[in-house]
């Protein structure tokens, strides 16, 4: 089922956006309040709950020992899934993940994977036989727009908080998961030729196009994804990337704080 929005709200939003304004008085490229709480789930190896405005997500990390993929015998494995549970929105239904949940999981996964946040070679226990499996589960509790960023930030925070359960598997002492890079995504939505950051639900519903850019602490781009049926100009993608680096640095400062 699709979320619905009334025409009057839609028209009002269009008028605001044309003047560079937003429903809650933010600037177009201003983020909502962000709150990150780590270690929230005692049964998980690492976890984070992120409130981005009223959007509320939990990422939990579980680790297990298993076989590597045959083509990467010396690398650990990360498996990411997202569940848009019916708690989070009147339109979500229970059942296996649909395409939007799959895209969400894959885009968030791509940033972490391609950004080499974890050195997967360090997750190898015995080449070709035994590696660490890292299960990432993203649970959406309240959906008020921009799940990509909320989940991406929560996943990064959860990884920084993860303790490898070596003792449980008789592999020596527990140790923090080696995190090499800090990658965060920022997602831009385009509405009527205006580009805005961190949309609320109503803004997301009227958007024409979406662009997610994930950057690392060196300012490198590590993953991108364009979504929805609208289009971006080449120049627009450049300015999104510039902006993503700036916002990414702010987010990394916040993430560093919770680390220490």
């Amino acid at each position, binding site marked *: 089922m699709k979320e619905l929005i009334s025409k009057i709200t839609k028209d009002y939003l269009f008028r605001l956006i044309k003047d560079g304004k937003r429903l809650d008085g933010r600037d177009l490229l201003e983020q909502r309040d962000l709150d990150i709480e780590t270690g929230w*789930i*005692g*049964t*998980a190896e690492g*976890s984070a709950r992120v409130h981005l405005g*009223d959007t*509320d997500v*939990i990422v*939990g*990390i*579980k680790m*297990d020992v298993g076989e590597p993929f045959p083509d990467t015998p010396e690398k650990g494995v990360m498996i990411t*899934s997202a*569940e848009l*549970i*019916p*708690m*989070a*929105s*009147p339109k979500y239904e*229970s059942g*296996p993940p649909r395409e939007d949940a799959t895209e969400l999981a894959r885009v968030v996964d791509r940033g972490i994977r391609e950004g080499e946040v974890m050195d997967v070679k360090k997750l190898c226990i015995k080449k070709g036989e035994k590696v660490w499996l890292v*299960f990432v*589960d993203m*649970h959406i*509790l*309240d*959906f*008020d727009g921009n799940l990509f960023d909320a989940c991406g930030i929560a996943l990064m925070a959860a990884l920084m908080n993860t303790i490898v359960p070596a003792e449980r598997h008789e592999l020596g002492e527990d140790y923090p998961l080696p995190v090499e890079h800090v990658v965060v995504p920022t997602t831009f939505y385009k509405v009527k030729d205006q580009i805005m950051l961190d949309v609320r639900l109503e803004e997301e519903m009227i958007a024409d196009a979406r662009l997610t850019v994930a950057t690392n602490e060196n300012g490198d781009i590590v993953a991108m994804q364009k979504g929805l049926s609208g289009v971006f100009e080449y120049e627009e993608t450049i300015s999104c990337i510039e902006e993503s680096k700036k916002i990414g640095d702010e987010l990394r400062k916040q993430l560093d704080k919770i680390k220490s």
Partner: protein
Amino acid sequence: MAEEELKLIDEKGIRNDGRKFDELRPIKIEAGVLKRADGSAFLEWGENKVMAAVYGPREMHPRHAQDPSRAVVQARYNMAAFSVPDRKRPGPDRRSVEISKLMSEALEEIIFVEHFPRASIDIFVEVLEASAGTRCAALTAASVALADAGIPMSDMIASCAAGKIGGKVVLDLGKKEDNFGQADVPMGMVPTTGKITLLQMDGNLTMEEYKQAMELAMDACKEIYKIQRDALKRRYSTSISTFEETNDMEEE
């Protein structure tokens, strides 16, 4: 198994987590924590973390399942993959299907379903962290979320378990007690009327022990009921006292 070495309860009747035989784990409830849901409640019960959300009354889907005389109550109990020590595969299993059914039936008893023909009232409970007694936690949280959603209902259900460990009947089994104990009786009731809306039992109990267990659990439900009511009072008194609270916070 290792019951003797584990020593779930000592000679003085103190359990391995320091509780007395008739002591509940600490319970905290907060009502109205989610924006999208019509009603919600977050409950922490010992190490358990449970979120409940209510949507409805709304149009029942699929249509053929509508009841022209009353609303259909659909509860969904779901465990997060990371809620247990060994990752649980997402999605419903036989256990959660059974708990969902029992919860739906228990809650149907207190909701005025005849007020909403053809509608559904949906209750979603997510177990985010599990440590024994999640079905009781779920039912307790669901009741608060229903009240928060303003669903017309006769009362709330409070739920709690009692059981037997080391030959003694005790209240509210913890994780180890649940795994290595001898019996578990999760029950739910409407504390003001004494009506029992949920009752399960597994293990081994004599008649006398069953009576002791139920008495412990019924007393505890009254205590839990108070926590449920307090959560709702806090939620709906804030709008009046916001001004004072803000002032207090500034002074601090």
